[in-house]
């Protein structure tokens, strides 16, 4: 395998790799976007600090709306602000938004074609101690199925910052998926990000590993170790789950022998679902999908849960050996 020239960090295997919650990058990106464009506004449902909107609120109090614990109102108020030319970022925990307000998003944002940016923080089992109610796993599926909707799950805080700024300039409705826990930083300021693009983070010829969100780090670690075990893996990072960059994926899959998808969410309707749909139509290949299989999470330490539910680099390695058998 060989690392891409995308200005990633030099060594993902380093023990004391720098970490930061992905949502922190969103907070910085929103502030930057707001400085660049006076029409960027924000609304939150009683989770301003947790979702990192507090930076924006402190700097632009007149452009910030606190709606209280009312997620249906959150997105429909966003729809109204967008109709008047604003670019609203509306945030809560992913379990509540888009968990609770799907129909409002469908009708008043997607069908009504308003560029509201729905920001769901605390997605995935790595939310940890709060338990299954707060570990949102179905958000990718819920948002991916909606016409007009863009779905983005950044891989680290640096990419989240770039994604937020890019979304502020984009005219489409969008969902931005964020994680709570400190996540290894694997990209740098120079690493490219464009909505709708997937990126080959490491080149290989045996197997294609397709990952999204914080799971890309796990995929990278797995690829490094697999190389020493004689398997040459290509890793594709898919920050934009919709629209899916089918060209980049098919370019890789057409050369390799098998495919693994990795995500921290339900496979059904998630990245695993999206890739399976693409490949079965365009390029059928042996496929293993790592993620949540039709079940809920539970309370526990994030690392403990990731291990329990099979969402670590070790599980990617096992899957690779298994699929190439």
């Amino acid at each position, binding site marked *: 395998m060989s690392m891409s020239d995308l200005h990633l960090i030099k060594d993902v295997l380093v023990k004391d790799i720098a970490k930061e919650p992905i949502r922190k990058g969103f907070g910085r990106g929103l502030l930057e976007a707001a400085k660049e464009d006076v029409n960027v506004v924000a609304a939150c449902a009683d989770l301003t600090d947790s979702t990192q909107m507090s930076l924006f609120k402190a700097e632009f109090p007149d452009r910030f709306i606190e709606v209280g614990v009312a997620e*249906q*109102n959150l997105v429909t108020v966003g*729809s109204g*602000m967008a109709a*008047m030319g604003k670019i609203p970022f509306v945030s809560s925990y992913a379990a509540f938004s888009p968990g609770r307000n799907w129909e409002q998003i469908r*009708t008043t944002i997607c069908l009504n*074609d308003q560029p509201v940016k729905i920001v769901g923080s605390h997605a995935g089992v790595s939310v940890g101690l709060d338990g299954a109610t707060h570990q949102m796993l179905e958000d990718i599926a819920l948002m991916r199925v909606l016409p007009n909707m863009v779905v983005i799950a950044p891989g680290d805080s640096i990419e989240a910052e770039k994604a937020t700024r890019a979304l502020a300039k984009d005219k489409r409705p969008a969902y931005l998926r964020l994680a709570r826990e400190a996540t290894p930083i694997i990209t740098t300021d120079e690493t490219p990000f464009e909505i709708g693009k997937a990126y080959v983070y490491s080149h290989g010829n045996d197997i294609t590993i397709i990952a999204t969100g914080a799971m890309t780090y796990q995929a990278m670690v797995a690829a490094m170790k697999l190389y020493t075990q004689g398997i040459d893996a290509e890793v594709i990072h898919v920050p934009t789950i919709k629209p899916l960059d089918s060209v980049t994926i098919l370019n890789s899959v057409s050369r390799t022998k098998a495919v693994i998808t990795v995500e921290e969410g339900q496979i059904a309707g998630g990245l695993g679902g999206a890739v399976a749909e693409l490949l079965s139509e365009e390029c059928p290949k042996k496929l293993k999908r790592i993620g949540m299989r039709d079940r809920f999470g539970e309370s526990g330490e994030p690392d403990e849960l990731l291990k329990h539910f099979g969402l670590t680099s070790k599980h990617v390695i096992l899957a690779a050996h298994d699929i190439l058998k």
Partner: protein
Amino acid sequence: MVKHYSISELEAKANEIRKDIIKMLEQAGSGHAAGPLGLADIFTALYFDILKHDPKKPDWDQRDILLLSNGHTVPVRYVAMAHAGYFPKEELKTLRKFGSRLQGHPERTKLPGLENTSGPLGCGLSQAAGMALAMRMDKILHRWVYVVMGDGELDEGNIWEAAMLASKYKLNNVIGIIDRNNIQIDGPTEEVMPLDDLAAKWQAFGWHVLEVDGHNIQEIIDACALARAIVEKPVVIIAHTIPGKGVGFMEYDFRYHGYLLHPEDAKKALHELRTLQGKIRGEHE
């Protein structure tokens, strides 16, 4: 811009609008009749007196906004818009037909002049609040956001979330108009899910409440003028209406909420409305 009409001219206009509603629903072969007929006076007052708008420039940046929250009553809006000059009346025949700009429930992206896509209930007031907040951020004065809501849709929690928000931010540029016709699909509102004391509910949520006879065009116009003058709070106008107004056998009958209009019913309805037209003329002569 908008020509000034006398009250009797507006009443005659409302009657014309009712006739066109019956004709278009008959043509469409489906759709809600009672709500649109009950709202005809309110929409006449809005499009021909109250709203600052320009049918030739639907996206005019100084216009007032009219949101329809209970999207199923959109036939009355389509007819009022056609009469106001947004599109040819001929197009009313296309309601609910394949390829039409007049979708069964309103879609903003299909027809210039619509401000929101609606049908699923309970969202209009939130959107109005969002628009009002955006206008305030931009320091826009003298533009109002009117939002027409059904009474049945007040069952939706989303409405009350919006009511709290508009009150919190003292959105005096929002004017809610509730079509209080006391019916919904499953029966009378007070049986399906009681709403009374409705005025007290809105007052408790921090709104200024006005009540009008929703078929008295002068009262509707005056209430909106008063609402624009009240700056301390958002204002909601509870407009008491008769579902199916103008067509005797439909009036007050909840079964006409989403009832398919048979050709013989349509004929009877049009006959009644023609008679009513004579009466309006007679009253003002």
